[in-house]
C-alpha cells in the first residue's frame, strides 16, 4: 500500500497546472445564458486543442489515454485553478462511456471527437413527469419508420437542453417496465424545447416534447430493446466514479475554510474543518476505488456509498457557506453552487434509493 504519485503522474500534474495557470479565463457568464453557453463552448475548444478536455479518452477521440489516477489529478488541478464548469459534462461523462462501450465503430468516430471539443453539446433526457426516480415507468415511445424512428412523448429535467445541440435518452419500442426500451440519440433541432427557469431565473433544465421527431436508424445505441441495459451501464457510471471526481469538492472545501476563518466563529470553523477533512476522505476513498477499477474489479453497488457521501458533503458545505454569508449569500459565487448542491441528493438516483441499495445490495438486508 502506498500513496505515491509516479514521476510521470507528477509531470502530468505540473503540465496541467502550468497550462491552466496560463489559460483559465476569469469568471464566464452562466452557461444557461446564450452568451455564457457560447463562452463555455469556446473554452471547451481551447481545452480540446491542448488535449485536456477528455484526458482519459483514447487519443483517436481527442484524449490522451490517461489513467484513472491521471484523470483524478487533472480534475484536482482543474477545479483548484478555478476553471469554468464543464458545459459538455453530460455528454462526456454520461453518454461518452456508453458510446465507447456500446457504440458501433462508426458511431464512435462520428460523435466522440465532436463531443470532446464541444462542437456537439449533449443533453440527457431520462426523466419524465411521471417517472423521476422510477425510470422503468417511462412512457415516451419510438415507432419504426423507413430509415429510422419517430419519437413521441415528453421528457423533463433535461440539463442544459435549452442551448444544447443533441440529446440522448430511452424510448419504449415494445413491452412494459424494463423491457422493450431502446436507447436513442437525436438532434435537438426538431424537438420542442421548453426551458424551465430555476430560482435564479435561468433555464438550467428544459422540458422536451417529441411529436414524431425523426431520428435515423444509425442513432440507436446498442440493440433495439436493450436500452435498459445500456442505460444502466451509463447510469452506473453516472452514479460511480466518473461523474464525481473529488477535485471539485476539494476546491470548495478550501474556499469554505477561508470563508469560515474570516467569520471568526469557532463553531463555523469546526464545521468547515470537518468538511475539509471529509473532502480528503472522499479523495482518499477515490484513490482506493481507482486502484480496484484499474485492477479490473467492479465497484457495483458500493458506488451508492460514494453518491450519498459526496452529495451530502457538497450540500453541507454550501449550506454552511450560505449561513456564513448571511444577506450577502447571493454574491461571491456560492449561490449557484448551493442550488446545484441541493439537487445532489436528488438526481442520479435519490439518496433514499441509494440508501436502499446500500442496505439491500451491500449489507444484504432483506428487501
Amino acid at each position, binding site marked *: 500500500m502506498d500513496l505515491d504519485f509516479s514521476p510521470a503522474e507528477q509531470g502530468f500534474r505540473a503540465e496541467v497546472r502550468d497550462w491552466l495557470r496560463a489559460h483559465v479565463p476569469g469568471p464566464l457568464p452562466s452557461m444557461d445564458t446564450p452568451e455564457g453557453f457560447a463562452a463555455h463552448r469556446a473554452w471547451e475548444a481551447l481545452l480540446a486543442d491542448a488535449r485536456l478536455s477528455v484526458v482519459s479518452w483514447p487519443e483517436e477521440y481527442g484524449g490522451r489515454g490517461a489513467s484513472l489516477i491521471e484523470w483524478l489529478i487533472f480534475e484536482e488541478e482543474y477545479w483548484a485553478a478555478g476553471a469554468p464548469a464543464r458545459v459538455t459534462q453530460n455528454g462526456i461523462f454520461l453518454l461518452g462511456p456508453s458510446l465507447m462501450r456500446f457504440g458501433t465503430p462508426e458511431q464512435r468516430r462520428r460523435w466522440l471527437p465532436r463531443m470532446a471539443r464541444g462542437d456537439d453539446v449533449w443533453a440527457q433526457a431520462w426523466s419524465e413527469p411521471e417517472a423521476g*426516480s*422510477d425510470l422503468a*415507468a417511462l412512457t415516451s415511445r419510438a415507432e419504426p419508420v423507413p430509415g429510422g424512428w419517430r419519437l413521441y412523448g415528453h421528457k423533463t429535467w433535461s440539463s442544459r437542453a435549452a442551448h444544447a445541440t443533441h440529446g440522448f435518452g430511452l424510448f419504449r419500442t415494445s413491452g412494459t417496465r424494463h423491457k422493450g426500451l431502446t436507447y436513442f440519440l437525436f438532434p435537438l433541432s426538431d424537438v420542442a424545447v421548453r426551458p424551465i*427557469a430555476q*430560482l435564479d431565473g435561468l433555464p438550467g433544465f428544459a422540458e422536451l416534447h417529441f411529436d414524431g421527431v425523426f431520428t435515423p436508424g444509425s442513432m440507436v445505441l446498442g440493440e433495439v430493446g436493450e436500452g435498459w441495459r445500456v442505460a444502466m451501464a451509463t447510469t452506473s457510471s453516472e452514479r460511480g466514479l466518473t461523474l464525481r471526481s473529488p477535485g471539485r469538492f476539494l476546491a470548495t472545501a478550501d474556499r469554505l475554510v477561508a470563508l469560515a476563518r474570516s467569520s471568526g*466563529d469557532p463553531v463555523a470553523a469546526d464545521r468547515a474543518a470537518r468538511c475539509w477533512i471529509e473532502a480528503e476522505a472522499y479523495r482518499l476513498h477515490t484513490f482506493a476505488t481507482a486502484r480496484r477499477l484499474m485492477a479490473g474489479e467492479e465497484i457495483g453497488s458500493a458506488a451508492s456509498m460514494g453518491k450519498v457521501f459526496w452529495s451530502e458533503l457538497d450540500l453541507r458545505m454550501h449550506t454552511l457557506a450560505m449561513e456564513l454569508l*448571511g*444577506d450577502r449569500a447571493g454574491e461571491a459565487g456560492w449561490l449557484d453552487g448551493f442550488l446545484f448542491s441541493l439537487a445532489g441528493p436528488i438526481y442520479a438516483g435519490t439518496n433514499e434509493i441509494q*440508501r436502499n441499495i446500500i442496505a439491500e445490495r451491500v449489507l444484504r438486508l432483506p428487501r
Partner: protein
Amino acid sequence: MNFGFTDEQLALAATVRDVLRAHCPPAALRSERRPAWEQLAGLGFFGLLLPPESDGLGLGLADVLPALEETGRACLPGPVVETAVVAPYLLPDNPKLASGALCVTVLPPGQAYAPDADLADLLLVARDGGWRLVARESARVVPRSGVDPCRPVFEVAFDDSEELGGPAAPALRRAAVATAAQLIGVARELLAVTVAYARVRTQFGAAIGSFQAVKHQLADAAVAVEFAAPLVHRAALSVDRAAGTADRDVSAAKAAAGEAAVLAARVALQAHGAIGYTEELDLRFWLARAWSLSAAYGTTAAHRERVRTAVLDGDLRRWP
C-alpha cells in the same frame, strides 16, 4: 400560567389569514411587490403595535405573533416586519404609520443590505449602537443580488440623517422575534405543501408519502417546528416584559426558528425533487423565504453564538 394564545390573538391571526388568502395568493408572488398591503392597512394591521395616541391599538408583540406567523405562511412580500414592528417601536409618534401610508425598511447592524429599500419612504439604519432615520430622498439605494425573489435587497448610502435617541437593541430584538414568527409560518406551509404532494405523487407504484424514509424526514421537520415555536412565543413575552433574559431568549428563538425553516425547506425539496425550485411550482418562494429570513436580523450562527456566550458566562437563569 396560560401558555397559549387567547381567542383575541387567534381571531386577529384568522382575519389576517383570510385577507392574505384573498389578496396574496401564490400567483401574486410572481407579479406584485406588495400584494395585500392595502387590505392589511385597511384592517389596521400597521397600527397594531402603535400606541392609541397614534391611532394604534397598543398591543404587545406576543399579541400579534400568530398574525405575523400568517404573513410568513403566506410568504407575504414587502418590508412587513420593518413597517409593522420596527417602525412603531422607533417612531411611535409618527402619525402616518397607523394607516399604512408609510413604508419603512431597516438596515440592521452586521448586515450589508436593506430589504425592499426601493419601496421605502423611510429608512432606519443601525449605526454605532443607535439608530439613524433617513428620508427616501436622502438615500441612494442600489440593488444587489439576493436569494429571495420576493425580498430584494439593496445597498444603502445616504448623506443626511436624523439621530433617534436610545439604543439599537430593543428594536432589533423585536425584529428578530417577528422574523422568527414568520419563519415558523414559512416552515409550517412548507410542511403542509410537502405532505400534500407526498400524498399524491407516486413512484414505484406507491405514494411517496407511504415510504418510511419520506415519512421520517417529514416527521423530523415537524418535530423541529413544534419545539421551535414555543421558544418564539416565550421570546415575545420576554421582550414585552423586558425580562432580564430577553436577549438570550430572542437569540434562542431566532436560531431555532431559522433552523427549523431551513430543515423544512431541505425536506420539502428532497420530497419534491428537482421540480421544487423551478418556476413550475410555487414552492420556490417559500424555500427562498426560509433562506432569506434565516439570515435576517442575525444569522443562525450569530444567534447561536450569543446564546453560547451567555450560557457559558454563567447566565443559566430561566424565564419564567
